[in-house]
């Protein structure tokens, strides 16, 4: 046991014990131990999440908010319990401000529709940044084209950090109604200074939305400390199931915003002439929701809370330092971005080797990485790369796995030199 591992064990963080909770990680791929470095795309699921979902289906399943019978009441309690868990996770002032969506993409589309079309007016503007995932870009383009709302793009520096001066320059005419920015880049790992961004947006009269898809996995998030107006994330990157995501927004915003979709469960009364809406958050949850997935998300939140974000951030910080040291020692390899505050996402290019080739060769050694533009095509263009390979870490990633990656990349390099 080296010093680093020893310290982590003493602080209560035992990565081997955590790995034992993830059944999939013990698999062999093509005769090699699985080295899963694609958690930024979707994370693996621990046993408590799997068990919670199976258990719900086996013992207490019915539709929610509808039946007066035992099964429905039990299921409704479990489903609604997730709202409390999410509120605790991000320190939301009220559980009623937690809206369940399918994923981050749907949450942003909801805001673009209900806030963008419902509250903003033509001539106003939305600000995003150059390092947004397509999920936080395309909905705003659609809003722009449908409603005459301008879309402005804040620059990132060569180091891959949000250019705060450039951001402020876009806000000074006070036409901006909403700043929608990633809290942590899915390509560069850059952690955006959310408190400063929110303060700046508010200074110029704009609301602020953070795409927390990556950040919520790696850092303790406090929407009140940030002073955010909207915060969105997805369950499946947080070791939970697919099909469940979250929108948090201030109650007064949710109350002012018109519904996104119409249907059952989101109404007060319905006649052929008109309908009235349910109270928030139910106003935004039309139709039968992802019940089992919500129950799984609660188990995922409880799982990471039990480990604790202090331990998670410390573990991932050490992994990040180790990965950057190993990767930057490989000749011809360029790690994209060099932000001061960054998490476990490493996109890289290798001289003479296409990202697709790198990913294919790594896969043959049991190493899972992503190749392409990572759903952030404009950022690739800004960085001057066609495509890159991306390795990303989770709570279960070990330094030994980073070593396997780096050693294999050295071998891959021989192919192309």
């Amino acid at each position, binding site marked *: 046991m080296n010093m680093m591992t020893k310290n982590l064990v003493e602080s209560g963080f035992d990565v081997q014990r955590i790995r034992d909770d993830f059944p999939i990680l013990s698999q062999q791929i*093509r005769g090699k131990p699985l080295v899963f470095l694609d958690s930024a795309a979707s994370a693996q699921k621990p046993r408590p999440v799997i068990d919670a979902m199976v258990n719900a289906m086996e013992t207490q399943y019915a539709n929610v908010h509808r039946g007066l019978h035992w099964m429905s009441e039990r299921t409704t309690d479990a489903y609604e319990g997730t709202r409390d868990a999410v509120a605790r996770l991000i320190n939301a002032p009220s559980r009623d401000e937690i809206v369940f969506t399918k994923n981050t993409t749907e949450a942003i589309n909801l805001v673009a529709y209900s806030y963008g079309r419902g509250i903003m007016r033509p001539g106003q503007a939305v600000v995003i940044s150059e390092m947004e995932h397509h999920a936080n870009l395309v909905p705003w383009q659609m809003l722009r084209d449908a409603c005459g709302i301008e879309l402005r793009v804040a620059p990132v520096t060569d180091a891959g950090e949000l250019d705060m001066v450039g951001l402020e320059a876009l806000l000074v005419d006070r036409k901006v109604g909403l700043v929608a920015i990633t809290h942590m880049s899915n390509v560069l790992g850059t952690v955006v200074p959310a408190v400063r961004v929110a303060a700046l947006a508010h200074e110029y009269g704009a609301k602020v939305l953070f795409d927390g898809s990556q950040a919520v996995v790696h850092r303790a998030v406090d929407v009140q400390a940030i002073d955010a107006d909207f915060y969105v994330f997805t369950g499946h990157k947080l070791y939970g199931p697919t099909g469940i995501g979250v929108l948090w927004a201030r109650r007064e915003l949710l109350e002012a915003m018109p519904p996104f979709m119409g249907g059952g469960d989101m109404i007060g009364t319905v006649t052929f002439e008109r309908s009235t809406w349910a109270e928030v958050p139910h106003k935004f949850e039309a139709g039968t929701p992802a019940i089992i997935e919500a129950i799984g998300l609660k188990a995922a939140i409880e799982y990471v809370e039990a480990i604790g974000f202090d331990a998670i951030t410390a573990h991932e910080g050490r992994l990040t330092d180790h990965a950057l040291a190993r990767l930057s020692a490989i000749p011809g390899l360029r790690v994209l971005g060099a932000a001061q505050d960054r998490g476990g996402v490493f996109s890289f290019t290798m001289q003479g*080797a*296409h*990202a*697709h*080739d790198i*990913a*294919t*060769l790594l896969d*043959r*050694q049991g190493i899972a990485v992503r*190749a*392409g*533009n990572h759903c952030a095509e404009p950022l690739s263009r800004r960085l001057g790369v*066609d*495509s890159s390979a991306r390795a990303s870490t989770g709570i279960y990633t070990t330094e030994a796995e980073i070593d396997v990656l780096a050693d294999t990349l050295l*071998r891959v390099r021989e*192919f*192309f030199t």
Partner: protein
Amino acid sequence: MPEAFVQPEDPSAAAAIAAIGEELDVFDDWMDRYQYIIELGRKLPSFPAEWQNDAHRVPGCQSQVWMEAVVRDGRMLLAGASDAAIVSGLVALLLRVYSGRPPAEVLATDPVFLRDLGLLEALSTNRGNGIAAMARRIRDVAQACTAAA
């Protein structure tokens, strides 16, 4: 202009598939196998720069693949290229199987051989993969030829 189309070296598509299988079998290790595949890509006839455009591009987000097809004397002749080395090698394998064959033979030759040889896991489902898309386009061209005939 030098010939960009691949001339057949095996007597039939089926013979080409069998020969590729034997050649790949020589290697015990996938890293070595890929080294060989990359070599095949490097030996592809050069793909004219004026064809490297959207009209010749096969959709796929992980790497770029271009192809061109003509019919001469009842045989489909194919040219192709990619910006990625392994993908270029897979393009070379596809062209070795399909280029220079009558459209009917192209249609009769299922691209499933790529999966059988362990070269492509998800032939029809992975939309990011330009090779699967190229295999489909080759078949579409052959289909159009037989429909027109």
